[in-house]
């Protein structure tokens, strides 16, 4: 199987005046395309920073991150944006929908950015799949947390990403809603054959993925 994400000796160090703080220290791992994986660890362990590096939202201080065969280190901000739009999908703990856009428009944005045509039926279809076909013209504030996360799911899959990063996707949801959202996430993922990288401290959720890597104090412990 092809490797879609490969990290070699990746470190992230924040500098504040004379002091420096090593958040990630010499991280090495890779993921094969189509697989699912969780990054788990306690709060402050560096999980989110690692996700940011993997998804091209931030740059490593040293080491090499390769996403879908592209080395991210040398890319400009705009090139990184193009990579994200092309290959990456996101789901966030606090949903991160654009508040001034309707549910449908939120789902359409990644496709519009790619300059694709006739995208409305596809976006509506995705909203249907997450059970929100009837709510397509509602704004995020008119939706519940669970509904917002489902729109977020539809948006994440809209551009048929090669890899999906989910940051604590159920962190802001109650148990029942969480369960529905997780099922939807895995169903859609399976259907699209997308690689899934999940960041969570919920071990039960992590267990649903094929592989788990643990992180503690900025180091990979397993």
């Amino acid at each position, binding site marked *: 199987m092809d490797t879609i994400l490969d990290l070699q000796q990746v470190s992230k160090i924040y500098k504040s005046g004379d002091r420096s703080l090593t958040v990630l220290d010499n991280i090495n791992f890779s993921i094969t395309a189509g697989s699912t994986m969780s990054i788990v660890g306690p709060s402050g362990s560096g999980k989110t920073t690692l996700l940011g590096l993997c998804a091209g*939202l931030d740059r490593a201080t040293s080491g090499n991150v390769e996403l879908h065969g592209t080395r991210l280190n040398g890319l400009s901000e705009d090139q990184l944006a193009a990579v994200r739009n092309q290959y990456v999908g996101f789901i966030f703990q606090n949903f991160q929908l654009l508040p001034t856009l309707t549910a449908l428009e939120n789902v359409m944005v990644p496709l519009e950015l790619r*300059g694709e045509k006739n995208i409305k039926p596809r976006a509506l279809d995705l909203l249907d799949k997450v059970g929100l076909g009837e709510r397509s013209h509602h704004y*995020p504030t008119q939706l519940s947390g669970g509904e917002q996360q489902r729109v977020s799911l539809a948006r994440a899959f809209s551009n048929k990403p090669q890899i999906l990063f989910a940051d604590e996707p159920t962190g802001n949801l109650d148990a029942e809603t969480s369960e529905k959202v997780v099922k939807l996430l895995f169903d859609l993922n399976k259907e699209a054959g997308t690689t899934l990288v999940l960041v969570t401290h919920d071990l039960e959720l992590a267990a649903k993925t094929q592989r788990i890597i643990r992180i503690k104090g900025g180091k990979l412990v397993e």
Partner: protein
Amino acid sequence: MNNINFRWLLQMAWRDSRKNRSRLFLFVSSIILGIAALVAIYSLGDNLRLNIDNQAATLIGADLALYSGKPVEGKAKALVDSLGKIRSEERSFASMVYFAKSGGNRLAQVKALDGDFPYYGKFETIPVSAEKTFRNGQQALVDQTLMLQYQAKVGDSIKIGNVTFAIAGILEKAPGSTGLTSTVAPSVYIPMRYLTQTGLMQKGSRVAYRYYYLFPKTTDVEKLAKRLEPRFEAGDLDYKTIQSQKEDTGRSFRDLTRFLALVGFVALLLGCIGVASAIHIYIREKLNSIAILRCLGVKASQAFLIYLIQIVGIGVIGSVLGAILGTTIQQFLPIVIKDFLPFELTTDISWLAIGQGLAIGVLISILFALPPLVSIRKVSPLNVLRVSLDSLKNDRDPLTWLLYGLIVLFVFGFSFLQMRTWIEALIFTASILASFVILYATASLLMWLVRKFFPTSWSYLWRQGLANLYRPNNQTAILVVSIGLGTALVCTLFFVQTILLDRVKLSSSGNQPNIVLFDIQESQKEAVLALAKAQHVPVNQNVAIVNMRLEEVNGKTAADFEGDTTAEQSRRIFGREYRVTFRDSLSSSEKLTKGQWKGTYKPADGLIPISLEEGFADRSRIKLGDTLVFNVQGTMMNTTVTSFREVNWGEVQTNFLVIFPTGVLEEAPQFHVMLTHVPDPQTSAVFQRAIVRQFPNISIIDLALVLRVLDDIFNKIGFVIRFMAGFSILTGLIVLIASVLISKYQRLQESVLLRTLGASRKQIFAITALEYFFLGALAALTGILLSLAGSWLLAKFSFEAEFRPEVLPVIVIFLFVSMMTVFIGLINSRGILYRPPLEVLRQDV
């Protein structure tokens, strides 16, 4: 960028603005008034230019007009006679006009006319036929101001000098006259053939000689005038053609519209600061949306463009609304300034002015919005994971500094276009800049002081209100700058008005002379003094005046200066008549600035020491020690300049450019000027009537009347300035409302949290009120102090007047601004007070 992409950016800009349109409109409203002011003024300027072009011929009334301040004789007379067959001659001078029926009399501009002038336009008279008939007999056209003042009717009699004229008609308008000229110096036209009989053409009388010509259509008057210019100059004749009249009139009104445009520009700048501060906070709130877009693959430049499109959009909307408002206002401007205009002003829509307004509006809104906008480029997609406001810190971005530089350059460029001098434009720009720096520094200092000396012993509510001034994401600096600048502007306008009005009041108060008699012949002096004594009118001053001409400067005559382009002096100084006095000491309105004052002269002293007014000496390039030869009725006086004087022309005094010492001119032909103070209008009327009856050649200036006229003029000018300042004041209020409204969104979360924690409505109310009070009070105080300093500088260096600010209005302005801030702040926070916290929390967008 391809079309699809740009369309998408437009679409995104539109979508993103959805829930913010009312706020965006609020940003826009700050610039509407500024643009309206500019469009109105530019339209006025355009219409003035258009009307001047169309009506220039009626402004001068002829193809060519020649002017001289002395009788036209010799070669000059031959030139005047040879120029054209169709010509008119006019002699004008100031004289008392006595209204037989009412017994009133007033100094007027008497114009003796011979010929069919005006050739273009006409005298507007009631009845219309009077324009022609007054020329046929012993009749006069009398200005409507005089007719109204003395309740005279057509057919009544007036006496000018020794001749009684019947009033043929009321003069409503003469070519080139304005409502203002008729208030200041109302005209009376009489036929020239009665001039000698009036007995007013005596030696020393100040008469202006004018010749008006009508040429055949084929004559190129401009060319003719250019060709004859050296001969006009040699004969001390000034000339005007329709073209030069056009240029002169255009120039003076250009100055007016430029000044007004500058006042309008201040309103616009204030609005732009409002826009900039609003956009700053707007972008801060949009941080998360921008980060999400970046996450989804939007390039930094695209994100930047989405918001730039919004700004351009609101800039265009604001400018269009401003242009519509400005064009509407322009329809009313002629009413405001009609008394200053020598012609009818039409108010056509000026598309050029609208275009200029739109361009400036869009440009300036983009320019001021760019510094906060460029920070969008730095928004990291990582913000979706953890929000950091650091990405909005622009201090180290060289582009931001470049933009600040561009803004300063724009302000300088615009003010230069209005003022046309580098130095004034620099001072204007520097003052605006300094105000910003001072206000910003004050705000920063306050935040630092509050933090450093935080009053821990105060009650919780006071502490919370105060702490809000320096908490993260505070708006102290922005609000202090915008509210402070608005206050400073309004206060300065108020103070300047007070300074100007104080000056006028000062000259009309106390025992200052209020009646001036001039043209008193030597033979009449004793009789006038006796009359004054008999009527118990004290004579404060009695000054002898000798008329003379300048013949030589340092051995060179007017002829030597002709054609000598390297000469320092202008040959103009030879053409005029000098009214000179002699005395042995300086008057209270004079100060010696250079050289040595010599008050007496003995023939043994050699050259006669004279003193010149320093401004006149400077304009004429005359230095201390220069030798001047004056011609007093044929007798040459060899003089040397030994001193310069600074003269306060503002005082009611007889002041002179040239002063001789005693011992020289005592026997020379002279006339006298007397200054008196009459205690009441009754005494004044009786005294004036007696003087005019006994001495018809003596002219009287009634300062009470002059002051009334001045007051009228000040009211008219004051109205124009207040009208323009109104734009700034209103803009200031809108900026205040916008600033407070946008800060509402930040306070919302905090107040809701406090309410959730159990704070009562009253407590939230008190915290909010206190915070806005601290903000408003500080901004108002800084603005007032700034304006006091500015007004003091203006008073000292520009108006050369004393500055005594009134305390009460200052306190009123302070309280008004502080309370207004609190009021607007509370009005906009009422949502937090009266709605359940959850509802507010859910509507956090």
